[in-house]
C-alpha cells in the first residue's frame, strides 16, 4: 500500500470571471520510506498541492489517499483525526504556537488526540534533533533553525504515515537550512516517508525522486 496516492487532483479558484487552476489534474504516488521532492517556481501550486494532500484544503475534484484512507469523503472531524494521526506537517513559517514552550508545542498533536505524552519519546526525539536543552523555551526565545527543529519534532511525535514539509528551509539562513535538510535526510534513512516542497534545486537533488510542477501541472 502506498503512503500517498494522488489521482487526478484538481484545485480551482475563481477570480472574477476567470477560473484559476492552482492544481490541475495531478496524479502520483509516494511509496512508504520514499523521499520525494516537489519542485517549482513560486506560485506554481506546490503548497496548494501539499495542503490538499495534508487535508488542509479541499480539492475541487480528484482524490487523495493517505495510508489507504480517502480524504475526499471525510468531514472536518475525520480529516482532523487523519492530520493528527497519519500526517506530520512541517511549515515554512514553522507555525509554532507562541504561547506554548517548545516541549508543549511538540506534544500538542498528542493532546489534541486525547493521548498522554510519552516523555521518553519526547526526550529521544529532542535529543536526535538537537533541541534537548531548549524544550522549556518559548518559540520567541529560539533561533529560526531551532524553531524548525521543534516543528519537525512536533510533526514526528505521532509516528505519521507521511511527513509533509512545505519549504522547511525557506525562512532559514544557509547554515541552518543545510542542517535541517541533513535532519530530513537522516529521518528518511530511519524510515520516514517524506514529501518535500522546495524551490531550491540543490535540496531537491538530495531526494530520491523529484516531481516538477508548473502552473498546477506536473512536468516530466
Amino acid at each position, binding site marked *: 500500500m502506498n503512503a500517498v496516492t494522488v489521482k487526478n487532483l484538481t484545485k480551482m479558484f475563481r477570480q472574477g470571471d476567470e477560473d484559476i487552476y492552482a492544481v490541475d489534474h495531478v496524479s502520483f504516488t509516494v511509496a512508504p520510506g520514499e523521499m520525494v521532492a516537489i519542485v517549482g517556481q513560486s506560485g506554481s501550486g506546490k503548497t496548494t498541492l501539499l495542503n490538499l494532500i*495534508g487535508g*488542509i484544503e479541499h480539492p475541487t475534484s480528484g482524490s487523495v489517499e493517505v495510508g489507504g484512507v480517502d480524504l475526499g469523503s471525510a468531514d*472536518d*472531524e475525520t*480529516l*482532523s*483525526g*487523519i*492530520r*493528527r*494521526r497519519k500526517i506530520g*506537517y512541517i*511549515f515554512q513559517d514553522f*507555525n*509554532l*504556537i*507562541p*504561547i*506554548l*514552550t517548545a516541549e*508543549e508545542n511538540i*506534544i*500538542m*498533536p498528542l*493532546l*489534541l*488526540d*486525547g493521548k*498522554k*505524552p510519552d516523555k521518553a519519546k519526547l526526550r529521544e526525539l529532542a535529543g536526535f534533533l538537537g533541541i534537548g536543552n531548549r524544550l*522549556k523555551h*518559548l518559540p*520567541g*526565545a529560539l533561533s529560526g533553525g531551532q524553531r524548525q527543529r521543534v516543528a519537525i519534532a*512536533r510533526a514526528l511525535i505521532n509516528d505519521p504515515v507521511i511527513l509533509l514539509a512545505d519549504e522547511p528551509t525557506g525562512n532559514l539562513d*544557509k547554515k541552518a537550512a543545510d542542517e535541517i535538510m541533513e535532519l530530513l535526510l537522516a529521518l528518511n534513512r530511519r524510515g520516514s516517508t517524506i514529501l518535500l516542497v522546495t524551490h531550491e534545486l540543490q535540496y531537491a537533488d538530495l531526494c530520491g525522486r523529484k516531481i516538477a510542477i508548473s502552473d498546477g501541472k506536473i512536468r516530466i
Partner: protein
Amino acid sequence: MDTAKPTGHIHRAVALRSKAAALLPFYNPRTGGLLMTYLLYMKRSFIRSPRRHAVLFAVLTCAFLLPLLISIYRDSSAWGTRQYLLTHSAGETYHIGNATEGDVPYFVGIRGLSAPVFRDGTIYLRILSEEEWRDWESVAVFDNEIRKRMEASGNKALRSTAFSYEYAHGISTDPSHLSQQRVLLLVNMLVILLSVSVVRSAYQSHLKQFSSDVGTLLACGASRRQVSILFAAELAAVFLVAAACAVVISIVSLKALFTAFLEIRHRSLAWLIFHVEPTNILLHLGVFFVTLGVSLGMALHRYRREPVGALLNGGENAQKSQRRRKPLRRRSTPAATLCGLWRSRTDRSFRSCLAVSLPVMVVFLLLFHILTLALQVTGAEEEWGLKVSRSSHGGEGFSAEDMAYVSSLEGVERIRPIYEPRGYILLPESPDETEKPLQIRPYSSLDTAAQTLSKYEIATSRKSGCHPGDVLRLCRSEAYYDINGAIRQPAQEDVTVLTVAALADTKPSDWALDIYVSDELYADIIASVPATGIEIALLDPAMNGQVEAALQARFAGAEYAITNRQSGADFLREMSSGVYLLLGYIFAALFLLILLILYVRLWGYIWDSRPVIRSLHRLGASKRTLYRSYTRQAGISAAIAVTVPFLIALPLTALLCVWQKVPLHLDGGMVAVYAALAALLLFAYWYPIHRSLKGILRLL
C-alpha cells in the same frame, strides 16, 4: 548570493523606517529628524486605530457615567430637602399665623429680633444673632417674649411657629434624610472606587497595545519626553471627550427622568428637585483624571526602564511570562485541554471584560436591593396611617369629644392618643449646674424593654452619662421658676425622686435628656396633661384621603396639623416605578456599553488568535474542538460574571436587612430580574466569541 539578500538587521531597519513613516507622516527620513506635530500624530493614531480609541472612550464614558448619575441624584435629594425647609421656614425664626396688620406693632422693638414683616396674614421675625439662634436657652427667652407679646395683642387666634436655625437655613437634621444621604454617599464612593479600578485597568490595557508603537518611535529617534507628551495629549483628548459625553448624558437623561417621574414638590415631606452641583461633578472628574494620569505615569515609567527591543516585541518580558506560566495539562477532552491552555495563557481579554462587567453588576444589584429594601420600609402599609396633632402651647389639647369624633369617622379602625408631657425638668445637683430639659416616654414604648420597672424606677439612654443607681429629681418647671422667671426652691411634694434602673440602647437627643419611666408613673404624668395628638389606624389604607378630608373639616385651625403617612407611603410606592425606571435606564445604558466593550474586546481576542487557531487546525484540532474550547472559556468567564455579583451583593443586602431590621425580600419579580440579568450576561460573553469564531472557522 548572501550579499544579494538583505541581512536580518537591515531587514529590521527597513521595516522600522517604513513603520515609523506610517505612524509619523511628518517623519523626514532624508534629514533624519523628527518634526513632531502632536496633533497630527493623534489624528493619525485615531484614524489608524479607531477601535482601540473607541473602546477606551466607551469604557471611560461608562465608568464616569454611573458615579455621576448617583452624585446628581444625591445632589437633587439634598437640594429638594433644602428647598423644602427654606420654603416652609421662609428663612425666618418665627411665623405668627392668623395675624392682622393691627397685630404688627406689638412685635416691634424686640431686642435681638428683626423688625416684624407682615405678609399674607402672617408676621415674620428672625433672631438676628446666629449664635443666639443656635443656643436653645436664648431661643427659650425669645419664645417667652413672643408669647408675652401675643398675649398683649389680645388676638386669641394668633399662633406662633418657631423654626430652628438649621431648619430656617435649609440644613436638614432629619435622621432619615441624613441616613439616606449617608447611604447615597457610601454607594457613590463605592462606585467611584469601582469605576477608578475599571478606568485604570482599561487605560493600562490601552497603553499596552501601543507599546510596540512606542518602541518604533524610540527606535526612530523620538525622545522619551516626546513620547510622554504624545500620550499625555492623547489622554487629555480622550478624557475630555469622554468626560463631556458622560456629563451631558447624565445631566440630560436624569433631567428627563426627573421631569417625567421623579420630581417631588409640595405633596411630600421629602422633596426631590433636579439639581447639579458643579463642584461635585468637577470633583468626580478630578478623581478620574488623577487616576488616568497616575496610570499613564506608571506606564511611561515602565517604558523608561524597558529596553526598546522589548517594547518592539509588544512590551512582553519573556522572563517574567516564563515565571508566571502554568504547565499545560491534559484534561478530559481535547477541547477542555485547549480551554485550560487559553485560561492559563490568554485569559487577559476575559479578565479585562470581567473587570468591566463585575463592578457594574455588583453596583446594579446593590442599588436594586437597596431600592427594593427602601421601598419595602418606606412604602409599606402604615399601621397608623394618619395623625392629627395640636400645638400644646397654652396647655390645650384634644378633648374626649374630639377623640370620639375621630373614632366615629368612616374608615377609622381605631385611634390612640399621643401625649407629650412638657414642663418637667430635672433639678440640678448643685447650685452651679443648670436644670436639664426632659423628654419623658413610657418604658413600655421601648422595643428593647427587657425588665419590669417599679413605679419610681427609670431607664435612660446608655449614652446619656447616667449609670444604674443614679438618683434624679423630677420637678415641674413652674415649681422651680417663679412667675418672674427667677429660680426658687421647689416644695418637697413637687419633687419626685427617680432611680436609674436600666440603660437603653437608644440614641440620645441633642437638646434634652430622654427618660423612660414606668408605665404606672407615666399614667400619673399624662393624667394631668391633654393629648396633643391622635394617631389613626385605617380600616382600609385607600380611605386615607376621605378620613383626611373629614379631619381637615373638623380641625381647621392653624394650631392643628394633619399628617397623612399613608398617602406618603402610597406616593413613595407610586414613585417607585419612576425610581425603578431610572435604575433600569442607568443599567440599560451601562449594559449597552458593556455589551459594546465585551463585543469589541472578545471579538478582538478571537481575531488576534487567528494564527493559533489556524496552526492548531493544521495540527489536527477539528473546528468543533476549537469552537468548544473557546466557548468553554467564555462560559467559565460568563459563569463568574453571573455568580460573583450575586455572591457579593446578596450578603451585603442581607447585612443591610439585619441593620434595617427588615426581612430579606425575595419575590418572583426579583428572581425574574436575576434570571434576565444572568441570561443577558451569558449572551454578552457567548455571542462575540460565537460570532467571530464562526467567521474564522468557516475560512479554514
